[in-house]
Structures are given as structure tokens and as C-alpha cells.
């Protein structure tokens, strides 16, 4: 058997893992195909509907921008972050049997799940755009390039955090549990439901330590005409992306063999 090039092996492994993750979800039952796409869609849809209903009925309903679009643009990105994180947490343990195939490296399983998440999120974005268009919302972003860039950035951010959590979870199971609880709390403190401008300055200062707030503000600022990115600290975001990426990669290179042997 001819030994193949490592880049080629990597690509075929990622492709196979992605198809397997997708197949695993689709084949859960008779309506597997439907729920694979619509479960995450409905989850987000319900959240957005509740939030929009509260805003339009509440006393502070003097919003100058469309809350539905505000919620959808940010929450899809947040959901992607949350799912990549939880997917990465269990990726090594769930795919342990696959390490019997020599060309499957643990990190490939994270890539496989990440790709699936990107794929599902893209479908959800398209569904929302379609529905928004159908019901006459103004779904056109202010700056589509920057919104796209923000989505890619949060993807890299999610991967680097996910990698560290995945490695940590192998050696200390409590980390995975902690992340599960934490990511739910993050939903409330990540400026997904409100623009940071609406918050008292004293609380603003604290919330801005959370890198996700910056990502959400960036997406909202570039999507919605009435909002801007005045609170976004791009340097802070960069630190939060590069540092975990560096630490995660370093830990991974150090510990790859131990993860396979576990």
C-alpha cells in the first residue's frame, strides 16, 4: 500500500468524518432529515419570537431598529459558538474508537463537528433570510463583508476555545460539565438580547470583559443601520482569539499521543 501525502489524508479524513456526523444525525429515525435542519432552526426561532414579543409589548418599545433582525443576526452566531464548544467537549471521547484507524487524529474529530456546525448554521441563515424576505423584512445588512468576516472570526474563536476545552475534558471531566453550565449563563451576559448601549455604563464596563459581547456588537453594528461598533475593541478580540489558539495548539501537539492512548 502506497503511503499517502498527509494533506490528502487530512482532507479525506475530514470529509469522511463530516459525512459521518451528518449521517449520524439524519439517520436517527424516520424524520431525521427534517429534524437535523429544523430542530436548531426552531430553537432559534422560538427564542427570537419570545424576545420580539416582549419588546413589542413592553413599555420600552421605542426601538428604532427591527428587533427580529437584531436577534437573528446575533443569536445564530452565538448558537454556533455554543454548539461548537459543546461538540468539541465530547469529540474525543465520542470518537475514541476511531483512533484505531491510524490516520484519524483527535483534532480531526473537532474539525468534523465544526464543519457540520458551519453547514447547519449556513442552512439556518438561508432559511431565516428566506423567511425574512418572504414577510417583507429588510434583511439586507449594512455591510455584508464585515458581517461575514465577523462570522468567520467567531468561528476561529470558537475553535480555539473548543480545542482547549476538548483537551482539558480528557484529563478533567468536570471541565465539560462546567462549560455546559457556563455557556447557558453566557447567553444572558453576551449582549445577544440587547445592544450594549442600552445598559447602564457601570454594568457595561463589566460586560465588556466578555469577548462574546464584542463579537455580538460587531455583528449587530455592521448588520443594522441604526447601530455601530463603538463598543467593539478589536484588539481585545484578537487577543482572545490568538492566545487560546496558541495555547490550544501547543497543548494539542504536546498531548496528542496521550489523547490517543487514553
Amino acid at each position, binding site marked *: *500500500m502506497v*503511503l*499517502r501525502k498527509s494533506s*490528502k*489524508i487530512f*482532507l*479525506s*479524513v475530514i*470529509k*469522511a468524518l463530516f*459525512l*459521518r456526523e451528518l*449521517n*449520524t444525525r439524519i*439517520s*436517527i429515525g424516520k424524520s431525521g432529515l427534517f429534524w437535523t435542519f429544523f430542530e436548531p432552526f426552531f430553537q432559534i426561532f422560538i427564542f427570537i419570537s419570545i424576545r420580539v414579543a416582549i419588546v413589542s409589548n413592553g413599555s420600552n418599545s421605542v426601538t428604532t431598529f427591527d428587533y427580529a433582525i437584531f436577534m437573528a443576526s446575533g443569536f445564530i452566531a452565538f448558537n454556533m459558538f455554543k454548539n461548537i464548544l459543546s461538540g468539541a467537549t465530547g469529540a474525543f471521547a465520542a470518537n475514541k*474508537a*476511531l*483512533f*484505531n*484507524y*491510524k*490516520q*484519524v487524529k483527535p483534532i480531526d474529530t473537532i474539525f468534523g463537528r465544526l464543519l457540520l456546525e458551519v453547514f447547519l448554521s449556513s442552512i439556518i441563515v438561508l432559511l431565516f433570510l428566506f423567511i425574512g424576505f418572504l414577510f417583507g423584512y429588510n434583511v439586507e445588512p449594512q455591510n455584508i463583508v464585515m458581517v461575514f468576516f465577523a462570522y468567520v472570526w467567531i468561528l476561529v474563536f470558537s475553535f480555539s476555545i473548543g480545542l482547549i476545552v476538548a483537551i482539558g475534558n480528557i484529563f478533567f471531566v468536570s471541565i465539560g460539565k462546567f462549560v455546559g453550565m457556563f455557556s447557558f449563563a453566557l447567553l444572558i451576559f453576551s449582549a445577544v438580547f440587547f445592544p450594549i448601549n442600552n445598559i447602564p455604563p457601570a454594568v457595561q464596563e463589566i460586560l465588556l470583559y466578555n469577548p462574546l459581547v464584542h463579537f455580538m456588537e460587531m455583528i449587530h453594528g455592521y448588520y443594522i443601520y441604526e447601530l455601530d461598533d463603538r463598543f467593539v475593541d478589536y484588539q481585545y478580540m484578537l487577543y482572545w482569539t490568538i492566545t487560546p489558539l496558541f495555547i490550544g495548539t501547543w497543548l494539542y501537539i504536546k498531548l496528542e*499521543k496521550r489523547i*490517543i*492512548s487514553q
Partner: protein
Amino acid sequence: MIELKNVTKYFRTNQGKRYILQNVSLTLPDGNIGILGRNGTGKSTLMRMLGRIDFPNEGKITSPNSFSWPLGLGGGFVGNMTGKANVKFVCGLYGKSYEETKEIITLVQDFAELGNYFEMPIKTYSSGMKGRLSFGLSLSFDFDYMLIDETLSVGDARFKVKAKEALLKKIENCHILLVSHDMNTLRELCQSGLLVHEGELEYYENIDDAIERYKEINKS
């Protein structure tokens, strides 16, 4: 050829480190090698390390050859995917083209004799059926070395005969690393033997010598 250089392997337990190999250096010439040793001495771990799906704590194992996954291994199958989809997945891992994949699917289907079950989820399979599927899958790929871990006894009596015939035919073109407690199987399939004993590794060019030594160890 497989080369071991200052290889040390241990497991951490509550009672401290339990050594499987302690600073072993050895060169194994190509051939069908049987791995012997008492329960818990680390035969399977050794086989996995030689096939480079497990790694020593210190030292290096190198080889220019390609190795299979442990043959007959049912792990890695997804329960709610069909047998066919699982076969496709492994083909994908090895970067097989569409035609090659189709060919392998036919081969596995014919060999495993699962009938309609081939298109049904793995979770509906009996353990014997799973074993047959993975055995057929392993035989459909070409490697320099096949790793076999006491899994020659899958399926019913008729399938056992068929599996053995297929395996004998397969090893005309490749070598095997076989872990087994069955001396007859070892004699039949292997020329040389590797004995794991108290952190040491003993290589015997003739499998009979290895079996002889193994019996000696068992007596004491």
C-alpha cells in the same frame, strides 16, 4: 521490518506505574509474528504500539510498512447508520475513489452474507453479524501488516471456516501480528514469536521455541 528503540511503556495505576516494556531495543524482521504472554502482560498494547495506534511513554518505534486497524474490530461503527454507510465511511477515511468504494462494498456484502441487514442500522445487528461485517471490511483493504487480536472466532461454525480460508489467502500477500492464546492457531499462521514477560520482550525466530518458552513461564 519494525524497529524498537529504548521503548518504555507503562500504565499509571493507583499502586504506581505498571510497566509493560522497560527500555526495550529490538529489530523485528518481516514475517508473520505471533505475540504471546500471560493475561494482562500487555500483548494487545504491544500489538497496538507496533501498529502505531498506541504510543510508548519513552523511546521510538519505527517502520516503513503500513498497518491495518485491529482486525475484526467492531468499534467505530455508528449504531444508527447502516452497515453499508459504515463501510463507506471507512473507505472515505482511506481516501478511496467512488469506484474503489463500490468494489469494496460488493466485496464486503458478499463476504459477510448479511442479506437485507446490510442496508439496516448496525444497532439491529447481533454481535456475530457485527463481527462478520468488520472481518469482511478488514479483508477488503491491503496493508503490509494486519493486526489481529484474538478475533478469529467470529460467527458460526461455517463462517469460521470461511474466515480462516480467506485469512490464509490474504496472508499470502501480507504479514500479520497475531495476539492469541490458542497455540494451534499461532503455529498455523505464524513463523516467529514475540513473548511479553515482566517488562521484557523476547523474540524467537521459530514460533515453536516461543511456545516452548511460554509454557515454561506458565508452569512457574
